[in-house]
């Protein structure tokens, strides 16, 4: 007959089993779940990159400590696509970091990186930066342009040069981390070791000191500056529906946009002949502009098609479009904001011309 001793022994064995086998498996599953939900779409299921940078680079994981990853997840890269994940709790962030660390070299643990400042000559660093770094990272550390693999760069070039002037990067990266990257380079990316290119350690310190000065650079307009924009652009037409449709088509053609279709809003949801003729949509596209936009951000399909919606109510006709500046705010992409500003003016011009 089992005694209390046997029960205790069994309980202890069960606890040990859970601790050593089940708990890590659950943590790993949790990591996979969190990674798939929040990271995989951009960084790839196996961390090989895509819209986002690759994470499964042993050189990268050897050079960054958990604090860098933690701050990167928390702060994101304002205006550079990577969002700030403020709603994840600390345990979830740590679980994600552990999951990402699986891609480090076998047996490698998270590096401990010094937090002390590197001292260097910023003037000399500026000269070296212009000579060695600016062609990829931009004259003011603004980073490479665009994002996405399929549209803006070939698949064998896995990473766009990071924006070194980005407040998210500057907060996350320690001087030692930047120095390590400069000294070792990063295998699998165009970033080469600067020691192998003939620089001395003091030169690298000067470069690090110069990169730190980017925190004083004036940054591109913050993404939030467009968050107060109205969601739609609307104009009232002095003409009836048919005439407004005609004028709108002419204005679209005048803006060098291709007319795709004109139909009732509910065309595909209603029986033939029962469509509501008081709501008409005109779809169009400027494929040249779209091609440029896709290079900047492959997610811009959410702005498509360039649609003008006509609403006839009590004999009055109004024409509206989405406001691309407002929608752009959710993309966290400063380059895209600039394009959307252009698009806003194109839309506004078309609406003005059609309703003048």
């Amino acid at each position, binding site marked *: 007959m089992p005694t209390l001793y046997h029960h205790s022994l069994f309980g202890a064995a069960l606890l040990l089993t859970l601790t050593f086998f089940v708990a890590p498996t659950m943590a790993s599953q949790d990591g996979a779940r969190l990674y798939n939900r929040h990271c995989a*779409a951009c960084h*790839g*299921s196996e961390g090989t990159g895509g819209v986002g940078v690759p994470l499964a680079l042993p050189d990268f994981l050897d050079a960054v400590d958990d604090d860098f990853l933690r701050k990167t997840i928390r702060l994101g890269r304002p205006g550079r696509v990577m969002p*700030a994940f403020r709603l994840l709790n600390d345990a979830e962030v740590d679980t994600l970091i552990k999951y990402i660390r699986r891609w480090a070299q076998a047996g490698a643990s998270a590096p401990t990186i010094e937090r002390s400042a590197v001292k260097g000559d910023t003037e000399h660093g500026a000269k070296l930066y212009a000579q060695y770094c600016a062609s990829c990272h931009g004259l003011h550390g603004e980073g490479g342009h665009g994002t996405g*693999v399929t549209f803006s760069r070939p698949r064998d070039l896995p990473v766009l040069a990071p924006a070194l002037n980005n407040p998210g990067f500057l907060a996350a990266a320690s001087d030692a981390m930047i120095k390590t990257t400069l000294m070792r380079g990063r295998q699998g990316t165009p970033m080469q070791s600067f020691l192998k290119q003939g620089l001395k350690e003091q030169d690298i310190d000067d470069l690090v000191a110069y990169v730190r000065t980017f925190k004083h650079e004036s940054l591109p307009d913050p993404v939030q500056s467009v968050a107060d924009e109205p969601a739609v652009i609307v104009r009232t037409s002095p003409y009836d529906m048919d005439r407004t449709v005609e004028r709108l088509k002419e204005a679209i053609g005048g803006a060098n946009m291709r007319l795709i279709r004109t139909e009732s809003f*509910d065309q595909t*949801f209603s029986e033939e002949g029962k469509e509501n003729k008081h709501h008409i949509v005109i779809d169009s596209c400027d494929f040249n502009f*779209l091609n440029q936009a896709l290079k900047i951000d492959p997610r811009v399909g959410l702005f498509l098609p360039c649609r003008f919606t006509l609403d006839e*109510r009590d004999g009055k006709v109004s024409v*509206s479009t989405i406001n691309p500046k407002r929608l752009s705010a959710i993309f966290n992409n400063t380059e895209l904001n600039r394009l959307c500003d252009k698009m806003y003016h194109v839309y506004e011009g078309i609406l003005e011309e059609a309703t003048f």
Partner: protein
Amino acid sequence: MKHRTLRLVFLPWLATLLLALPVRADELLMVRAERPFTDAIGDLQIAIQDHGYQVARIQRVDVGLASGGYTTAEYRLVFFGKPEEMRDMEEHYPELLPYLPLKIVIFAEGNSTLALAYNPAILQTFFKIDALQPRFRHWENDIREILDQFAAQ
């Protein structure tokens, strides 16, 4: 007395605090399916239909780009909605029509396929129509489920 103070002071303060919290970070919903576009596009349509929506149109953006001489991978827009909901929006909230019907962007990335939508909850931020909040919320839930089903297949 204490309970009355709690009701009069604490609860309004709590409500104000909750309303003042920043909007959710996930304004863009995006998933990756580890299969080629040609398989994935059909799965997306099935996932949409499984959730009671009607696919209204598939716009072949890649075909338009290619006809303009631009090189591109597969890139489509899938428009969808529930006819009765779309008719109701048309009748009562025409100011929202530029953002309707609902849509999911789907495009190839090598052997993977990405699908994304904006979170319909942003429409509440954009238009501030309290009566529509439950609808935006159920659209959000449905789109999350559609994308999850699409990614998991």
